[in-house]
């Protein structure tokens, strides 16, 4: 077998970035919001790896904190979207019928709209905040997962192993969740990588616009909107934030590409 560079590089990069983000959940070298007049616009140094921003806050700590916030939100969004999408898509795909037709039409309609646009509408109604954002994006991510899973269930439900399970009198729900579900794993895994990236992208964009998280828990996107104001004085602030976001998305994107070429799943 040809060496799967996508999988290797993507896996390594994803792991690295996930660890980086996860570290921010528990530990930062400095208090990310501690202001220090003496350190304003400090250049990168051993004391402040990435330097300091206009208020003298340690940028490395802020990047860690922002990355952690972004990761948490993306994972939560993914969890809502994937779990609900799995249940809805699985049931629709296996049982079919009128309910399936209606639900899928609805999913198609929602998926036709750019998710940032819909999320903006929802956030306009609910107001900003981390949990509102997770809710809005999570719900909006359900259709794409539901469609993905449904397609896979539709394909699998007529395969021999499902037929024999049915003949043996296994209950339909058990077939759906115990027999078929594990076999949709490759497709789901590929879908999760795409979903994760979309979640990071949507969260970052929304927070950048000031309609996502609140200033009390800043994420990468929110900090970027802050950093943009100091692009001339501390370009590295925006630079490190951008780099973190891009590497996270790139790593997971490559990982997904690798999974697809390994399992033969189409995007």
């Amino acid at each position, binding site marked *: 077998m040809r060496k799967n560079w996508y999988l290797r590089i993507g896996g390594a990069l994803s792991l690295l970035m996930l660890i980086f983000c996860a570290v921010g959940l528990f530990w930062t070298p400095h208090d990310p919001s501690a202001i220090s007049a003496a350190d304003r616009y400090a250049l990168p140094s051993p004391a402040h790896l990435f330097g300091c921003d206009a208020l003298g806050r340690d940028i490395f700590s802020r990047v860690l904190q922002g990355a952690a916030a972004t990761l948490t939100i993306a994972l939560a969004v993914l969890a809502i979207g994937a779990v609900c999408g799995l249940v809805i898509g699985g049931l629709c795909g296996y049982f079919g019928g009128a309910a399936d037709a209606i639900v899928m039409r609805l999913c198609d309609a929602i998926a*036709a709209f*750019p998710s940032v*646009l819909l999320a903006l*509408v929802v956030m306009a*109604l609910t107001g900003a905040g981390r949990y509102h954002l997770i809710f809005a994006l999570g719900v909006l991510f359900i259709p794409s997962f539901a469609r993905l899973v449904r397609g896979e269930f539709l394909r699998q439900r007529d395969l021999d192993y499902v037929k024999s399970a049915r003949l043996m009198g296994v209950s339909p729900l058990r077939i759906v969740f115990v027999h078929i579900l594990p076999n949709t794993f490759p497709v789901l895994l590929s879908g999760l990588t795409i979903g994760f990236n979309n979640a990071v992208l949507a969260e*970052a964009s929304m927070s950048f616009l000031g309609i996502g998280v609140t200033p009390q828990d800043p994420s990468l996107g929110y900090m970027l909107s802050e950093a943009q104001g100091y692009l001339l004085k501390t*370009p590295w602030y925006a630079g490190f934030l951008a780099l973190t976001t891009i590497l996270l998305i*790139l790593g997971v994107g490559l990982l997904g590409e690798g999974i697809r070429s390994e399992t033969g799943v189409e995007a």
Partner: protein
Amino acid sequence: MAKAAVKRVALLLATLLLVTLLAYAAFSVIPGDPTHTILGLDATEEQIAALRKELGLDLPVWQRYVNWLTDFLHGDLGKSYKFNMPVADLLAPRVQATLTLTAVSFALIVVISIPLGIVAARFRGGFVDRAITVLTQVTMSIPNFIMGIGVMFLFALVLHIFQPTYVSPEAGLAAHLWFMFFPALAVALPKSAMAVRLLRGAILGELDKDYVRTAYSKGNATGAVLRRHVLRNAMIPVVTFLAMTIADIVAASIVVEQVFTIPGLGQMLITCIGKRDYAVVQAIVVILAVVVVGCNFLADALYRVMDPRIDGR
């Protein structure tokens, strides 16, 4: 064919009706009474009742929807309480900016992605192809607003090629378009990367098909096979993608407008969400929704025109 077209258009209208209904409904459930916003909290009952009647708030919901839709179709998009002017007047100058940004971005995507996709497929596996693959993979991973900040930093702050303040068309069309080129770049690059990959894949997929072998057997050179046979087939998914992309471009414009402080629909949307000026938000949402539905309709129609195998159904 004609019958099928009528059916498609009917479906389009039904979808538009549904979308406007949803947009209307979403903004009708907002807690809080606009009368309080207008009159303040110490208004008398009579004042409130009079205003409710004036605004048509005493009517049943469906009737309010019909009235709202009728007004909307006549160009009356409601009234902004925060800006104290008709929404239509507020949005008209901003539509132009967003439209220009979208158009320039779309043109860039087409100009960038089609040649690169063809070149990558033509020299599959070679150095150029690999370079394009790596480049597109990275570019795809860059969110539009980060691309915007990058473009701003590089071209405005380091190279000083353009001034990072909005240049309106009044200052001259050339100057306006020159300024718009940079935000459009930020919108277009990530999408172009996706289009390049799609086109490359589509061409390579077509090259494996039997009719390509037939084309070669007639004495066609590789270039002629691509031009005369493969490209038309490979473009079918790409054109569909490009038509649907317009919706994504509009969404990306909202974010990029913020980066470059372009007074467009997106910036207005964000401002009004912040100010809770729902009449404006609702109008913009309806406009954008119509654009999205229209793009999907366009994509579908183009697909049918380009692929003779699809009969009008």
